[in-house]
C-alpha cells in the first residue's frame, strides 16, 4: 500500500494540474468567443460576395476564365490542410489529419502526385512524418491571422494552378458546427465549379446590371478573391473549432482531476485509518505484554 506521504504529494500534484486545465478552459472559452465574433463579422462580407458572384455568373458565359477550366488530364493535386498550432484539444487535430491523409492516399491510388500546403504546426508535423511533399507552410499563425495571410496563401494556390504545378486543389479544415461538434471538411476549391459545395447561398437577385470594366474583367478580379475568401473562411472555422475542442477537452480534464482527487482522498483516509489502527494494536499489544 502506498505510503501516506506519497498519496498526499499525488493529491497536491493533481490539484495543481486541475488549476492549469481550469485556466486553459477559461482561456479557450474567451478565445472561442473572439473567434466566433470574427466569423460573425466576416459573414456580411461573404454573403455580399457570394451574391455579387451569383449575379455575375448568371449573366456570364462559363469557361471565360482559366480558374474555371476543369483539366482533362490531372497529374498533381494540392491539399491545403488547416490545423491548429498547439495540441491539448482532444482529437481535433487527429481527425483533421486523418481526413487529409485519407484523401491523399485516395488521390495517390488514382495515380496523382499529392502536394501539401500546411497552415498550423500540428498538420505540418504529421504530413512531414507521412512523407508527402510540403510546398508551403505557415506555422504559429493561428493565433493572429488576418485576411492578408489568407490572401497570400490564396495567391500562392492560384499561381501554382495557373502555371500547371497543380491541377486541382482541395481545402481541408475543421468546420465549426457547435460547441460540441466540429467536423473535418474537404472542399474542392480549384478549379472553381459552378455548383460548388459550401456556397448554397449563391443566388441571383435577378437585376440587370451595367458592368464595369466588363463581365470578363470583373470575373477576373472576383474569382481569385473567391479562392481567398474560401481559404479565409476555412481558417476562421478551424480557429473557432480548435478553441471549442480545447474547451471541451479541458473541461473533461478538469472533471477527471476531480474524480482522481476524490479517489485519492479516499485512499489517503483509508491508509491513515489503517496506520492508526496498526499503531493502537501495537500499543495494546505492548501493554498486554508488560502485565
Amino acid at each position: 500500500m502506498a505510503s501516506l506521504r506519497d498519496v498526499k504529494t499525488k493529491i497536491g500534484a493533481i490539484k495543481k494540474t486541475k488549476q492549469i486545465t481550469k485556466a486553459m478552459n477559461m482561456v479557450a472559452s474567451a478565445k472561442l468567443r473572439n473567434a466566433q465574433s470574427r466569423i460573425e463579422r466576416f459573414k456580411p462580407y461573404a454573403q455580399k460576395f457570394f451574391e455579387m458572384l451569383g449575379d455575375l455568373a448568371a449573366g456570364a458565359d462559363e469557361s471565360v476564365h482559366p480558374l474555371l477550366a476543369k483539366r482533362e488530364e490531372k497529374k498533381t493535386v494540392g491539399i491545403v490542410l488547416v490545423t491548429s498550432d498547439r495540441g491539448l484539444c482532444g482529437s481535433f487535430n487527429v481527425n483533421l489529419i486523418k481526413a487529409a491523409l485519407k484523401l491523399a492516399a485516395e488521390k495517390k491510388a488514382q495515380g496523382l502526385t499529392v502536394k501539401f500546403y500546411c497552415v498550423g504546426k500540428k498538420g505540418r508535423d504529421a504530413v512531414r512524418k507521412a512523407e508527402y511533399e510540403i510546398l508551403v507552410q505557415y506555422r504559429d499563425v493561428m493565433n493572429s491571422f488576418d485576411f492578408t495571410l489568407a490572401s497570400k496563401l490564396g495567391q500562392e494556390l492560384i499561381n501554382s494552378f495557373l502555371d500547371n504545378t497543380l491541377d486541382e486543389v482541395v481545402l481541408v479544415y475543421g468546420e465549426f458546427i457547435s460547441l460540441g461538434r466540429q467536423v473535418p471538411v474537404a472542399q474542392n476549391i480549384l478549379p472553381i465549379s459552378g455548383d460548388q459545395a459550401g456556397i448554397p447561398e449563391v443566388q441571383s437577385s435577378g437585376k440587370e446590371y451595367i458592368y464595369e470594366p466588363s463581365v470578363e474583367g470583373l470575373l477576373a478580379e472576383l474569382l481569385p478573391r473567391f479562392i481567398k475568401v474560401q481559404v479565409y473562411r476555412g481558417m476562421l472555422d478551424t480557429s473557432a473549432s480548435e478553441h471549442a475542442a480545447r474547451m471541451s477537452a479541458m473541461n473533461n480534464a478538469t472533471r477527471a482531476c476531480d474524480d482522481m482527487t476524490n479517489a485519492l482522498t479516499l485512499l489517503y483516509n483509508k491508509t491513515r485509518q489503517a496506520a492508526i489502527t496498526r499503531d493502537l494494536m501495537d500499543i495494546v499489544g505492548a501493554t498486554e505484554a508488560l502485565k
Partner: protein
Amino acid sequence: MSKKLLLEIVTPDRKVLSQDVDYVGAPGALGEFGVLPNHIPFLSALGIGNLYYKDAGKTHYVFVSGGFAEVSPDKVTILAEAAEMATDIDLERARKAQERAQQRLARAQDKIDHARAQAALRRSLARLTCRNSGDKAGTC
C-alpha cells in the same frame, strides 16, 4: 434632397460603415464615378484610392483598396479587402509605409517585387491623401 442612399462598406474583418448618405464618389477601376439616389444597377471593380460620401452638407473620406462596388437604386455596397475611415488612418504608419515602399522600389530587381512595392506605395499615398482631404473638409 429627401431621398437618400444607403452606403455600406464591408471588409472581411468588419463592417466599416452603414449609413444613409446623399452622394457617393468612388474610385472605379476605369476612373472615378459618382452615385446619386436612383442610380441604375451597376457593378464595378474599384482601384486603390479614396471614396467619399456627402451627408448633411459634409464630405467624409474613406480609404479603400482592392474592392468592388455594387450600386442599386437605393443602396451602394462596397466590398473591399481593406477600408478605413479617414479618422482612423494612422498618419505616422502611412508615412513609414511610404518610405519603406520607396526604398523597396529603388532596390527592387525583378518585376514582381517592383509591382508589389508600387502597390504598397500607392496604398500609402492614398491613405495620406485620404487623411488630408478629411482634415480639409473638417470631418476628421
